[in-house]
């Protein structure tokens, strides 16, 4: 397994773990809890710190074996494909959130028949946006791994 593939596995795994941390903080019994702005900010900062640690570890390990770290044209092409898919996911997810929020506002006087999350609170919106970023990154890593493995 190449260094880039190992890094992609690491990014996928650490991304899922950090998202699970967010899930633990932002939800309770499957529902988004209305965290205070201070708690949401603290969770956000903790997530940033975890993300930095998760990014530094593979970079440090890679620095110890510099022979395998150089990217060639195939690595760059695979990265570009992963970035493209990441962009698609962000584009779709942001549009889903926009439509969702507009629909909620439009039908404000009706009770939804489905358990649709209310993104009216700051915590819910922050969680939805962070989930979008983590989902997009997970899709990118899966595409990268699939390209290396095919």
């Amino acid at each position, binding site marked *: 397994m*190449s260094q880039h593939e190992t890094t992609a596995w690491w990014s996928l795994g650490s991304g899922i773990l950090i998202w699970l941390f967010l899930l633990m903080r932002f939800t309770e019994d499957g529902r988004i809890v209305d965290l205070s702005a201070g708690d949401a900010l603290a969770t956000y900062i903790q997530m940033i710190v975890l993300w930095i640690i998760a990014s530094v570890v593979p970079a440090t390990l890679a620095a110890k074996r510099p022979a*395998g770290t*150089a990217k*060639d*044209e*195939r*690595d760059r092409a695979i990265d570009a494909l992963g970035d493209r898919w990441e962009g698609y996911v962000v584009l779709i997810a942001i549009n889903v959130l926009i439509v969702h929020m507009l629909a909620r506002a439009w039908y404000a006087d009706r009770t939804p028949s489905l358990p649709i999350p209310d993104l009216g609170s700051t915590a819910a919106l922050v969680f939805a946006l962070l989930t979008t970023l983590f989902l997009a990154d997970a899709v990118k890593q899966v595409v990268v791994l699939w390209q*290396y493995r*095919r």
Partner: protein
Amino acid sequence: MTVGRGRVSNNVRRLREAAAMTQAELGERVGATRQTIIAIEAEKYAPSLELAFKLARAFERPVDDVFRFHAEG
């Protein structure tokens, strides 16, 4: 005349073995990783024009001897 879709085949493995080179050595010579050489030999990755020329040069052959385009239809 228009040229439609097609696929690129190559003789990289045969030429590399004839030159008694390892995949890592060939990769080092052309500035690619061993994994990329493996992918090219397995025809799972079609290299850029630049890398194709570098590979041909590494084998001291014209590009046509190393890579071949098969038009479909």
